[in-house]
């Protein structure tokens, strides 16, 4: 069709839209709202994703880790026996090249308080170094961060609540009274002081209340007042620390990798030989001799390097005898409670100085660490690690600083490699709401479909006449798709504008959801976000959704029009 013809169709389409103003307005309003909602939702989710990534880097992982490859392979099991020594060399090399490095030994265990126990992940750290790569240490709600040389811990606020350690934030009255009795020690001003810090809790539970608590007269729930000063909190902590409330015991198992001196025949045949790789069997068989008199296989290999190989082979095969577990129970004191913007340090995690765990009174670390956390010295808090903090860049810097290549068994792992599971989870989280929004979009298009259907029906005679005048079916369909497309376009443009208007304050100022986050508890939201949620601009989504809406709208006209042109012209003309 000529340009003229298209213009004529466009004219007809636009005039038809103007003809039925109410319908046009309503339908495009539906599209406008869907587009705006979609834009808002993806910007919001985008903002949450950025925020949670920032939180992972700033409070949990830092930019990268130096670790043994074998550890990384099984990192979910926390194989603490895959550690490495001489980490100071690497730290110094990194410092020379402009990076901060903090050592860590991570192990699993159970923390016992006077009220109960909880499984915990323990991070043995160097307090000063930690603060140079991560920021959670600035969020010690109560108490302080542990110091070198002491058996003391900082634990997450969730663990503190569960174990009833530190300052209780929402105790029941009887528990509070008992605490007052112990802490104040019959000193009336102290008693009154403690009581003054608490008030009856709001029982409704807030916005996301799962189960409103039952009110038990005489044992109602109390809450720490929100406006208590730091000075008062410190004083309260002092009083509590004088009781035994903060005394804890760490029960952990020390995993030691060692080639077994002796192996019983049943284990040799039943477990070891069946799980070793073919190429390793010869090596292992050569290292042991069957001692008939005692009835065991005895280790005869002396060479350390070969023993290491044997050890690796056994660990690879999952042979139990190669990793021994020594039970340990250590007394310690909780000196601080962490409440950071990221849920990880707030959970069942304990931070303890690494120096006290070096010998048998601790975890027999003897200078080993499971990882070195790395961050560029001047890395800004608000930005994610860039190319200069990639694993390649850091490995190169490390080698430069060392003056030699990195040992084969060590590697640098970028935080994203480490968090692949989380990032996958995050993708899932963003997909679901977006699918929802897309569904919303689709439903509004059913509205257009309906509008077009009615319009086509109404204009059956007109359509018949135009066909009689010689308009082909294809032209007819194009005309109506144009009309619907315009409708979609109007809705899209308005929707994009509306979406941007709503987004602007969300990006600039964000939404403070502290209250909501509080009633949800730390792990309720599923994202590692602060109490202020911010959106980000997502230009492709904004234009993409607008274009999609227009195209989809146009498409909605296809089927009704096609049906109309299938009708014989004479019937159309007769249609009333």
């Amino acid at each position, binding site marked *: 069709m000529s340009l003229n013809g298209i213009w004529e169709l466009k004219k007809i389409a636009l005039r038809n839209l103007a003809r039925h103003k109410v319908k046009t307005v309503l339908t495009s309003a539906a599209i406008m709202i869907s587009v705006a909602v979609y834009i808002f939702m993806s910007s919001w989710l985008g903002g949450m994703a950025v925020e949670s990534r920032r939180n992972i880097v700033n409070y949990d992982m830092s930019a990268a880790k130096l670790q043994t490859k074998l550890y990384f392979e099984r990192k979910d099991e926390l194989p603490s026996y895959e550690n490495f020594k001489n980490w100071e060399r690497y730290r110094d090399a990194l410092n020379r090249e402009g990076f901060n490095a903090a050592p860590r030994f991570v192990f*699993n265990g159970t923390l*016992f308080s006077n009220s109960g126990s909880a499984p915990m992940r323990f991070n043995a750290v160097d307090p000063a170094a930690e603060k140079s790569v991560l920021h959670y240490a600035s969020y010690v709600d109560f108490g302080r961060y542990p110091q070198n040389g002491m058996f003391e811990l900082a634990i997450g606020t969730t663990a503190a609540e569960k174990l009833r350690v530190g300052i209780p934030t929402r105790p029941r009255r009887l528990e509070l009274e008992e605490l007052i009795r112990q802490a104040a020690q019959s000193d009336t001003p102290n008693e009154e002081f403690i009581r003054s810090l608490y008030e009856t809790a709001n029982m409704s539970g807030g916005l996301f209340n799962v189960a409103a608590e039952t009110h038990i007269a005489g044992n109602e729930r109390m809450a720490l007042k929100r406006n208590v000063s730091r000075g008062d909190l410190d004083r309260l902590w002092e009083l509590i620390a004088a009781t035994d409330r903060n005394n804890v015991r760490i029960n952990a198992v020390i995993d*030691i990798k060692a080639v077994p001196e002796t192996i*019983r025949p*049943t*284990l040799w045949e*039943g477990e070891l030989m069946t799980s070793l790789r073919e190429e390793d069997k010869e090596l292992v068989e050569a290292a042991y001799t069957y001692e008939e008199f005692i009835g065991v296989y005895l280790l005869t290999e002396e060479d350390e390097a070969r023993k290491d190989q044997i050890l690796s082979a056994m660990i690879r095969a999952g042979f139990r005898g190669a990793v021994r*577990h*020594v039970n*340990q129970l250590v007394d310690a004191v909780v000196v601080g409670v962490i409440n950071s913007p990221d849920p990880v340090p707030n959970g069942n995690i304990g931070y303890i100085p690494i120096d006290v765990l070096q010998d048998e009174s601790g975890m027999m670390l003897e200078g080993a660490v499971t990882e070195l956390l790395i961050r560029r010295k001047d890395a800004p808090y608000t930005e994610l690690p860039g190319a200069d903090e990639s694993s390649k860049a850091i490995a190169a810097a490390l080698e430069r600083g060392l003056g030699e290549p990195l040992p084969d068994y060590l590697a640098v792992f970028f935080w994203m490699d480490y968090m692949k599971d989380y990032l996958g989870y995050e993708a899932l989280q963003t997909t679901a709401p977006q699918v929802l929004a897309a569904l919303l979009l689709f439903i509004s298009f059913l509205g257009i479909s309906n509008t077009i259907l009615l319009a086509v029906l109404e204009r059956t005679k007109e359509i018949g006449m135009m066909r009689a005048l010689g308009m082909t079916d294809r032209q007819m369909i194009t005309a109506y798709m144009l009309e619907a497309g315009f409708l979609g376009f109007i809705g899209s443009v308005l929707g994009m504008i509306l979406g941007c208007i709503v987004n602007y304050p969300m990006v600039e100022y964000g939404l403070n959801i502290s209250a909501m986050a509080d009633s949800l508890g730390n792990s309720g939201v599923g994202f590692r976000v602060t109490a202020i949620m911010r959106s980000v601009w997502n230009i492709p989504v904004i234009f993409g959704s607008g274009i999609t809406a227009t195209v989809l709208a146009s498409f909605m006209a296809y089927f009704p029009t096609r049906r109309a042109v299938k009708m014989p012209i004479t019937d159309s003309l007769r249609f009333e």
Partner: protein
Amino acid sequence: MFQITKKNVSISVLTLLIAVATATPAPTAEELLRRVDNNEVYNTIEYEGEMIIEHNNRRFVKTMKAWGRGNTHSFIEFLNPEDRGTRYLRRDGRLFVFSPDMEDVMLISGHMLRESMMGSDMSYEDAINNEPLADRYDAVIAGSETLNGREAWVLDLTARRRTESYPKRKLWIDKENGDLLRYELFALSGARLKEFNLLRAEVIDGRRFPVESEVRDLLRRNSKTTFIMRNVVLDKPLPDAIFSQRNLKR
């Protein structure tokens, strides 16, 4: 003044020799330990048992039937309603469990071994670890104590290898009948982790058996597990099929 004369010396030596010959020799720590290791030596054993777990003011009674061969093979089937169908097989140094809910056999390995068995005070690791103590520990007699009216040797055990699960143990051994009356397990720091007490022993086929005993996990508050053995039959021929995976799944 005692004069060192030839006669005096010979009398002294003679007296000494007689004393040595007639006196009851005090056992060495290692001997005691070996005797404990060799307690309960049998070819096969079959018995009905009970495991009573008391924890947090709750009481669970689990009944079972058990078979064993030597120190290496055992098969236990639980009979009480809540656990009916749960079966354990220990052989070749491995521990398998069949769970009727999952209808599947699982190998218990790695960190799972440290878990409590059926919620009791015993861990899986405790249940399968039975290498002779004398090989793994250096023993020293720390003295004597009276325990429940019985005179007992107190033994302090220190692990020979730094990779030993419990770096220290303490044993109370009945001076008269050699029963292991009590033992305590310690962490590397010396903190007490577990406690075992013999409640009642019986002579079966000429051997002494701890038919009633209790274990306490000291990290759990107010927790103890009592083990009772009944109808113990020793050295009856048991078909190998009992200690098979097929027997777990049937």
